């Protein structure tokens, strides 16, 4: 085995797998030999590469968001009924037995409502589909783009049963079909998706002068409007004012998810409720949008999708994600230019990343996010017990990136420091050890190092793996090596 000197130039296959993809699988490096850029471009051209189809028998456990939300609504109703029934029974029993109200009997643990945990089952099925997709990808560039956009337009399962049941469907319906399409289309699909309308409270927002507003004395909720401007499109500090936020919130009123009763439409589907929509013209960013029902918000979204600040914001985030925490200004400028010129063509944007010299020359200094790390482990380990979806979800929870459950609408951090934390590194060590212990046929860890990292593995890493006292330790060292952690 040739040990490369410290002067080794950047290994382009490693760049393709780590910076752009989800890590090499055994034998994967050979397929990229010669032209790693071509392999990345091939992923961008592969038809339907980002999609997860409900027709696939492997995805029998998945439901469309409307069915998923309906299932959750039904389960919630049933839980409520059972709780009421039980409360009634307890009250009766209390009335007949109790003399002192302070001597309440402790709640019976067996008295929990026995409603199937639909939301958890759907969540698990969606998680499995995503993890399988990560495992099967050739390089994983498109999957990485899916995670980037899914985090950019995040919803959180912590919001409640409805989002827990539909978070996976949201990604499949609003992110995946558009990940190589137009930004304006993705934006529209995302902001109109029931999971997003529910997560960012547009469900509650009522135009004060709308029919519903006048009747029910309720009003605006600015959450969705603010996050669209601040996080999804223009970016904080890009010049919009509080008046813009409020005005945009008015424009967005009426965009709702149909409730359980189905008065507005099929329960769990996205609808426009004219009764809740604030009537009249509205001004946003200096432009007047005439009253047009749901068309008013469509027109506004269409404009801000094409706003120069949006191009700059998206370009910066993409460059930060794929190149460096401090992205080179030239790279950001080029991405912004492509975004503007191509009318937000995300495939063109992804292709620009591949063509960008900085992406191939700058050192791999970012940390793999927990999901990328777990995916890379699963890909390196191959099929086996180390690939159980439940285990991957537990690892993600431990690492602080629970799937589809970001701390806030700004998503999970994309900064190295967030993931190279003391606790995080300690947990990565535990995970590396556990994962290595579950691979039944590790083979020779030195060979695995060649297969996963390749010739640019540092002499120190090479030595550490070669000197490991067991295969398991050798593999764990590989999974902890800087070349495996950094991207």
């Amino acid at each position, binding site marked *: 085995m040739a040990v490369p000197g410290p002067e080794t130039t950047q290994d382009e296959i490693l760049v393709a797998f780590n910076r752009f993809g989800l890590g090499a699988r055994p034998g994967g490096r050979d397929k990229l030999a010669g032209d790693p850029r071509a392999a990345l471009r091939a992923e961008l051209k592969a038809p339907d590469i980002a999609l997860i189809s409900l027709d696939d028998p492997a995805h029998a456990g998945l439901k469309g968001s409307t069915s998923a939300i309906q299932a959750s609504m039904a389960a919630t109703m049933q839980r409520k009924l059972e709780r009421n029934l039980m409360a009634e029974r307890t009250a009766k029993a209390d009335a007949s037995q109790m003399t002192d109200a302070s001597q309440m009997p402790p709640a019976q643990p067996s008295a929990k409502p026995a409603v199937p945990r639909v939301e958890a089952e759907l969540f698990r099925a969606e998680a499995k589909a995503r993890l399988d997709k990560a495992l099967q990808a050739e390089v994983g560039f498109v999957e990485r783009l899916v995670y980037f956009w899914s985090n950019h337009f995040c919803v959180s399962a912590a919001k409640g049963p409805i989002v827990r049941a539909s978070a996976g469907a949201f990604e499949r319906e609003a992110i995946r079909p558009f990940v190589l399409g137009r930004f304006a289309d993705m934006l529209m699909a995302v902001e109109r998706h029931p999971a997003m309308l529910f997560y960012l409270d547009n469900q509650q927002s009522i135009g004060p002068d709308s029919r519903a507003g006048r009747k029910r004395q309720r009003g605006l909720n600015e959450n969705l409007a603010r996050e669209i401007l601040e996080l999804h499109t223009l970016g904080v500090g890009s010049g919009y004012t509080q008046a813009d936020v409020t005005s945009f919130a008015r424009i967005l009123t009426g965009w709702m998810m149909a409730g359980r009763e189905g008065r507005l439409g099929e329960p769990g589907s996205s609808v426009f409720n004219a009764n809740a929509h604030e009537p009249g013209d509205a001004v946003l960013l200096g432009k007047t949008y005439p009253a047009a029902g749901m068309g008013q918000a469509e027109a506004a979204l269409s404009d801000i999708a094409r706003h120069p600040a949006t191009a700059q914001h998206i370009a910066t985030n993409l460059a930060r994600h794929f190149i460096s925490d401090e992205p080179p200004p030239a790279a950001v400028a080029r991405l912004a230019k492509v975004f503007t010129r191509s009318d937000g063509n995300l495939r063109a944007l992804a292709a620009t990343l591949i063509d960008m010299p900085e992406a191939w020359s700058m050192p791999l200094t970012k940390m793999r996010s927990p999901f990328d790390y777990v995916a890379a482990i699963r890909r390196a380990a191959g099929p086996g017990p180390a690939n159980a979806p439940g285990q991957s979800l537990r690892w993600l929870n431990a690492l602080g990136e629970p799937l589809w459950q970001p701390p806030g609408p700004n998503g999970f951090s994309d900064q190295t420091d967030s993931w190279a*934390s003391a606790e995080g590194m300690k947990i990565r060590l*535990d995970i590396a*050890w556990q994962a290595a212990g579950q691979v039944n046929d590790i*083979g020779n860890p030195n060979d695995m190092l060649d297969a996963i990292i390749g010739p640019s593995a540092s002499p120190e890493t090479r030595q*550490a793996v070669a000197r490991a*006292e067991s*295969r398991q*330790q050798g593999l764990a*060292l590989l999974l902890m090596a*800087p070349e495996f952690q950094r991207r």
Partner: protein
Amino acid sequence: MSLLCETPHPSRRAVLMTGGALFAWAYLPRFARAADNRDPRLIVIVLRGALDGLSAVGPVGDPDYAGLHGDIALSLTGPHAALPLDGFFAVNPAMPVFARLFRDKQAAVVHAAATGYRERSHFDGQDVLESGYAGPGHVATGWLNRALESLPAGDRVATLGGLAVGPSTPLVIRGAAPVLGWAPQSLPAPARDLAARVLDLYQHRDPALAVALQKGLDADRMALDDQMGAKAINPKGGLDSAAGMRQAAQGAAKLIAADDGPRVAALAFDGWDTHVNEGGATGRLATLLGGLDGAFEEFEKGLGERWKDTAIVAITEFGRTAQINGTVGTDHGTGTVVLLAGGAIKGGRVIADWPGLKPAQLYEQRDLAPTSDVRGVLKGLLADQFGLSAAVLSDKVFPESSAVKPMRDLVT
């Protein structure tokens, strides 16, 4: 001193097993026809990382030992005196249980032992040790599983299969014969040795990650210490910690002692690669040996009635250099010890054709020269415990090993 050159003296059983009965009885286990209704068990403990046999069982009577092993040499005097086995060898003071078993003739040592492997790679060395093949590269099946497979169908030992302890199945017991997997609940725990190695790598290649990981480990340690100041109440430990070894043995003993439990088990304990600050009578290696000693004790306790029919063998891929290195540790070497314990072991003996420790007597002038073949010890145990013939042992269990004769008379 009992420098027992193991010249096979033909006992009645040895004649029976290797004589004319060989081919006719090739597959008939001994206990099946034994009058005393024995129900034999065999437990194999793989010590990964290459155990320093000279620090586990020190040749304190060898005039060259103390000089070579320097500060970490065992000694019969001083505050941490080694426990004498005979006039020549003494066991590390971290192993009082083993010393007691030895006195009770339930433990034995085979010294200056090695497999046929003469290179110094852990991975290849473990392949050879566990696969039972003459060379590296065979990683599909292990000799213990093939031994199970070689028993006649319907034999209880074969039917009940083997037991693999730990998060992964050790190669030694992997294969076609059925194997039950079991791991102590608290596994896997952070491996301290792994942490040290990763830290070392980070310090050279990625200082920022080194700082983060070190802080994480420190915080973890503080949190553990915080729990009423007693780590003892939190015996969570991997199989490279004394607590973990004890815990693994405790659980395994329960399974093996059961009437319908497996008769054959494999455990793998990590952490024996002692390049730096190995320690002698105390220190890092002694802590690990204490864990192994604890495992022996747990087996003795947990197996109860079954202890008398049990043979435990602890083996490692190779030994370490006779002379300590510049960092008060030892590097990869060749000859080492095989430790035998259990009620079925004909103990109280150190079996060694002692090669001596003078420069010319060392293997390649650096390692304890091997004079016994580990495969011979294992063949002897399999023959005596399960009646496997020399032919099956040389052909199927340890392929291409007909030159290595089973070491007989290890079992009572």
